[in-house]
């Protein structure tokens, strides 16, 4: 039957167009699309209730009923994986949005004003920078207790200087470009120049960094859940699933821990491919 491949090609076509024809990037975009669909439509897609316990299926391997097997409590791993995409994507999304906005604001402000503003903001960034993100998250967890909130806040703050440094350096470069100076000479206010010209021009690079940061945030948050500090059971979350599933490895049941592990790796790879391709395109455009 030719209908199937045709269908598939039609589905992938818009992605391929966005990807600029690059197969790898198309694949990465497809992965992300699948993830987003899975996260949004989880209740409709998942074959089982992620929390449904079936003690007779405990640690069953892959069966037609449970494609990716069942965990220690007999819950369907695939369904949990699908639902896990929700916290898996939501946490990093918040982290990336907040840290990007914060970082851009700080970085561009520092670059644009220079002088005292720059040195104060740069010092502040350096200070936060000396707190590794996970450490900050762990401290906040120690103080405010486990859950997604404290880590997300901590990482939004801790990731901001990474964006901020980049934003500052590209904004400095961009600011020195004659076209920005031409706008100054035309009489535009600094505010308008920043918002209308400088930001849009540095945004793709920062977006690229943010896409890559998304992957890191996902890894960090999953690590926190793994340590038992992040998303709490019974909520299906990849990191928590690995934590819950790792004792089963002893019983030879790999899927409950390995499946979410692979999901994390694939997601992070997809995000970094997309991020790098954005950066590549910016670089090519610069030439």
């Amino acid at each position, binding site marked *: 039957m030719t209908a199937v491949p045709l269908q598939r090609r039609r589905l992938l076509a818009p992605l391929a167009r966005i990807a600029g024809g690059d197969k790898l990037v198309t694949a990465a975009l497809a992965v992300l699309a699948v993830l987003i669909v899975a996260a949004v439509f989880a209740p409709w897609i998942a074959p089982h209730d992620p929390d449904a316990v079936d003690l007779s299926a405990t640690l069953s391997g892959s069966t037609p009923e449970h494609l990716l097997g069942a965990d220690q409590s007999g819950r369907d791993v695939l369904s949990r994986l699908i639902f896990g995409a929700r916290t898996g994507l939501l946490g990093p999304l918040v982290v990336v949005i907040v840290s990007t906005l914060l970082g851009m604001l700080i970085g561009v402000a520092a670059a644009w004003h220079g002088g005292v503003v720059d040195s104060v903001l740069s010092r502040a960034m*350096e*200070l936060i920078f*000396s*707190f*590794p*993100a*996970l*450490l900050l998250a*762990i*401290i*906040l*967890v*120690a*103080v*405010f*207790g486990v859950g997604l909130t404290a880590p997300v806040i901590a990482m939004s703050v801790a990731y901001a200087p990474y964006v901020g440094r980049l934003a500052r350096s590209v904004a400095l470069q961009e600011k020195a470009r004659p076209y920005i100076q031409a706008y100054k000479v035309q009489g535009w206010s600094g505010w308008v120049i920043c918002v209308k010209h400088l930001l849009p021009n540095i945004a793709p690079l920062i977006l690229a960094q943010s896409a890559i940061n998304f*992957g890191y945030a996902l*890894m960090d948050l*999953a*690590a926190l859940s*793994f*340590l*038992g*500090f992040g998303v709490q059971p019974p909520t299906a979350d990849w*990191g928590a699933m*690995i934590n819950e599933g*790792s004792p089963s*490895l*002893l019983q030879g049941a*790999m899927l409950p*821990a*390995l499946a979410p*592990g692979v999901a*994390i*790796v*694939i*997601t*992070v*790879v997809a995000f*970094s*491919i997309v991020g790098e391709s954005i950066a590549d395109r910016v670089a090519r455009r610069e030439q």
Partner: protein
Amino acid sequence: MAGFLLRRIGGIAVTLLVTSFLVFGSVHLAPGDPASFLLGGRSASPAAVAAIKAQYHLDDPFLVQYTKWIGGVVTGDFGKSATFRQDVGGLIAARLPTTLLLIGYAGVLILVGGLAFGALAALRRGVVDRAVLVGTGIATATPSFVAAIGLISLFSVQLGWFPAFGNGGGFGDRIYHLTLPAAALALTFVGLLARVTRTSMLEELGREHVEVARSRGVPGSDVVRRHVLRNALGPITTVTGTIVAGLLVATSIVETAFGLSGVGQLLVSSVTVKDFPVVQAVSLLVVLAFVTANLVVDLVHPLIDPRLSHAKGGGA
């Protein structure tokens, strides 16, 4: 140079002071009565609470408590762990060798693997490059705890080649015990360093002075060694600083996953039981290590790139 160093060390001191204040302050903000944390959540008699409060100076105003604590820290006294009923300094000191050995081991793996793969990819474009790119892409995306699970299930559980627990006895045994943890710890960073090395070397390979060297009949291997590798070291050193930071925190995950008793695992278990004196001390230690690593990077940079030594030396 000496001036620069002094200024940087002063900067580090300020950073540490501020971070210690922030850590101490945020811990102070924690909801609940510190005394009840110290009692491990047991509802105790008022007399017991009073005794604990006196012992840990919990009745003093915040600033007094902070001053007492930081004063102690300066003299090497990090206070007493609530759960272990021991000096925090001793607790950390006992676990530091494992952590340092782990980091050192992983560091060697990262440097050797990262540089080798990165250089290989940069110099052998085509299939090798693609393979390295894919491999490092996956490596960078593999969180250490996932790597730990994978390595344990393959090498300890299935194959039984490596022990899955413990720190080991003598040096050789320790190395043997730490191999899997170090590999799990290193994986992400090997990928990262390899990618940076590759990019950095490719950038240098495209530079005009490299072509000039070729145009003068310098053999390829010399060109790579003298003009490409050496010049590519700048970004590599910078990312090494970031890697050190990552390593410091990732050890807590890896140590937990492998049941190693190191500083990272101490941090995690102390957070779990809200043993704040330990959390404070370890945090401070991590920050100290991190800023020191960055200082070292900044000191190494001018050695690699003479343009920087000029600028810095002149400023002092």
